[in-house]
């Protein structure tokens, strides 16, 4: 007689996130607790590169905190940031080669800045002003920048995954050595596009790097409610997609995992699902209050693994960083932010008629009619702020 039970037994490991996850045997780590690097896993970044990446991570956090303040002050409507995820975001973008493309989710402005999105353009996007490359048509943090091979952010979850797979597939069909790296969170692994993306990537061996930022939360829903499996990298196996886990708060581990994935894709060995174990230290966005659902003390426990502090400890150990250097960096960034913010905040709203542009390549008669009617009619109050 057999019995059916939901009890998975004492050996079942769940996806529930704990700070010690990154210590698991299957997780790629490079930095040791004392800030030194494991020579067997070291991706061998130059001193200058490590400094550049540290500065980029700090810049990401400074801009993030400033954007939150702007929202609280009512100067922008919204912000969705990456507090605590800077190593995952900056390290992965750094691993890309010049010809590769990046398909963002919506937390990766730090990657965009690293790849060349000018800081002022980013602030233009937060304000939705006439300088915004997206012409003020989307919420803050929904940027794009074709010149720097940065895709276009949208809010629906997971849709960019299949697109990145199709993009890389096209490159393969054209015999061009281009890799697409796509970001998504742990919540997106529950979307149909995650399944579709991995399935198509596996079947056609597309040169795609699928980077899951496992940050523990999808708004208020913990990782253990997205999956009953232990983490997400193992999901690759069912699709014939190589899966790896890395410590997402260890810059060197992220760089190494992504470089290996890009190299694998580039030489025709197909896609990789990279699961970066990180932690969302903020709420989901400025519209969210995590006090309502997040256990007390959790942020402090994960805060021990703060990627910026860990990298700083490494730099100090190498003798490459000091308190004066830190102060100088913050002063420099404050001035950059001040200047870009001031410039962005002064710019006007996009022209009224621009609402009707880019719906189609050329506006058809009905849009021309609607545009003329709007222009001839009364103005609403409060737009353009």
């Amino acid at each position, binding site marked *: 007689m057999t019995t059916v039970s939901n009890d998975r037994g004492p050996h079942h490991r769940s996806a529930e996130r704990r700070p010690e996850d990154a210590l698991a045997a299957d997780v790629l780590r490079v930095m040791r607790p004392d800030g030194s690097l494991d020579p067997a896993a070291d991706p061998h970044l130059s001193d200058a590169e490590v400094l550049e990446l540290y500065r980029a991570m700090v810049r990401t956090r400074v801009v993030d905190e400033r954007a939150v303040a702007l929202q609280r002050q009512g100067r922008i409507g919204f912000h969705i940031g990456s507090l605590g995820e800077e190593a995952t975001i900056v390290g992965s973008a750094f691993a890309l080669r010049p010809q590769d493309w990046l398909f963002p989710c919506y937390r990766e402005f730090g990657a965009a800045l690293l790849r060349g999105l000018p800081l002022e353009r980013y602030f233009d996007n937060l304000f939705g002003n006439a300088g915004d490359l997206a012409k003020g048509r*989307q919420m803050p943090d929904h940027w794009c920048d074709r010149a720097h091979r940065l895709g276009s952010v949208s809010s629906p979850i997971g849709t960019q995954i299949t697109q990145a797979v199709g993009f890389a*597939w096209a490159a393969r069909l054209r015999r061009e050595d281009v890799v697409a790296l796509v970001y998504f969170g742990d919540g997106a692994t529950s979307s149909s596009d995650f399944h579709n993306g991995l399935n198509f990537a596996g079947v056609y061996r597309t040169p795609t790097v699928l980077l899951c930022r496992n940050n523990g939360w999808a708004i208020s829903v913990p990782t253990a409610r997205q999956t009953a499996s232990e983490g997400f990298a193992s999901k690759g196996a069912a699709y014939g997609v190589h899966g790896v886990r890395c410590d997402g708060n260890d810059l060197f581990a992220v760089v190494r995992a992504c470089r290996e994935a890009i190299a694998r894709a580039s030489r025709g060995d197909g896609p990789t699902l990279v699961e970066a174990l990180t932690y969302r230290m903020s709420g989901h966005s400025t519209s969210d209050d995590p006090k309502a659902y997040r256990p007390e003390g959790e942020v402090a426990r994960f805060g021990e693994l703060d990627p910026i502090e860990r990298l700083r400890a490494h730099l100090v150990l190498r003798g490459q960083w000091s308190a004066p250097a830190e102060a100088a960096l913050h002063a420099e960034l404050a001035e950059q932010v001040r200047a870009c913010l001031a410039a962005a905040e002064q710019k006007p709203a996009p022209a009224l008629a621009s609402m009707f542009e880019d719906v*189609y*390549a050329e506006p058809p008669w009905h849009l021309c009619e609607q545009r003329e009617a709007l222009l001839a009619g009364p103005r609403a109050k409060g737009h353009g702020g």
Partner: protein
Amino acid sequence: MAQMNMVQAINDALRLEMKRDDRVVVLGEDVGKVGGVFRVTAGLYDEFGEERVIDTPLSEGGIIGTAIGMALYGLVPVPEIQFADFIFPAYDQIVSELAKYRYRSGGEYPCKMVIRTPVGGGIRGGHYHSQSPEAQFIHVAGLKVVCPSNAADAKGLLLAAIRDPDPVLFFEPKRVYRAAKGEVPEGDYTVPLGQAKVVRPGKDVTIVTWGAMVYEALDAANKASVEGVECEIVDLRTLWPLDIDSVVGSVKKTGRLVVVHEAPRSCGLGGEIVALVNEKAFLHLEAPPVRVTGFDTPFPYTLEMEYLPLAHRILPAVLATAKY
């Protein structure tokens, strides 16, 4: 000129464009070796190979999602959705992504493709092989929607659609896939998007329709003629953006309007056409505009010929409008 049915004409257009432009790729379920369940892509796999005529996994969302990525890279995808009824798993990618890419990126990322899909009833297909969901795409800013009624138009419209800078849904009326046989010009030509065609001139009543219902309207018009009512039939061909000048011009001449479509009545394209005519030609109207459409029910199997707006339902609407 060659005699072709619509399946052959569309196949001809695909072959021609794939030869002319090596960025064009066809992808979808069963489009490769077997040439599609309706054989519209027959022979293309042998001619262009598996990298340009791609059998995909059974996932409409995956087909359109990856096709968007291909389009962003610079290919010109022509995905096939096996039946329009199965397009809904891809609705998010079409509505939230494809339709908005150019706009949301401030023009940085134009994203064009032609999504071909068989549409409409009358083939004993029940709920899931018969529907006409055009209005659900017309309501989304950024998409163009085409539905040819005959072989020559199908070829010319498809070539125009593939060369168009915007995403196009290309609905193929499967009831007349093989019945709509006619002269099709050889070689390259386009039928411009956004231009309707008067397929029967008349002075008394304007019938606006498209796809397979053009033949029902013609049947009804011939019967109305016996009773002394001459119908002008406007075949829209491009459903959106629609050719407002042709529609309004005809109604200004006849003063009477009947719109015929297979899709359910409420919030169908017919309602929009009636509203536009009211806005632009109200003082020319001699009778209330009338819609002859499918019903606001799921598409039925056994009773499908009662559901469809066939000639026997169009004729009394035309005569009543003429006598109003």
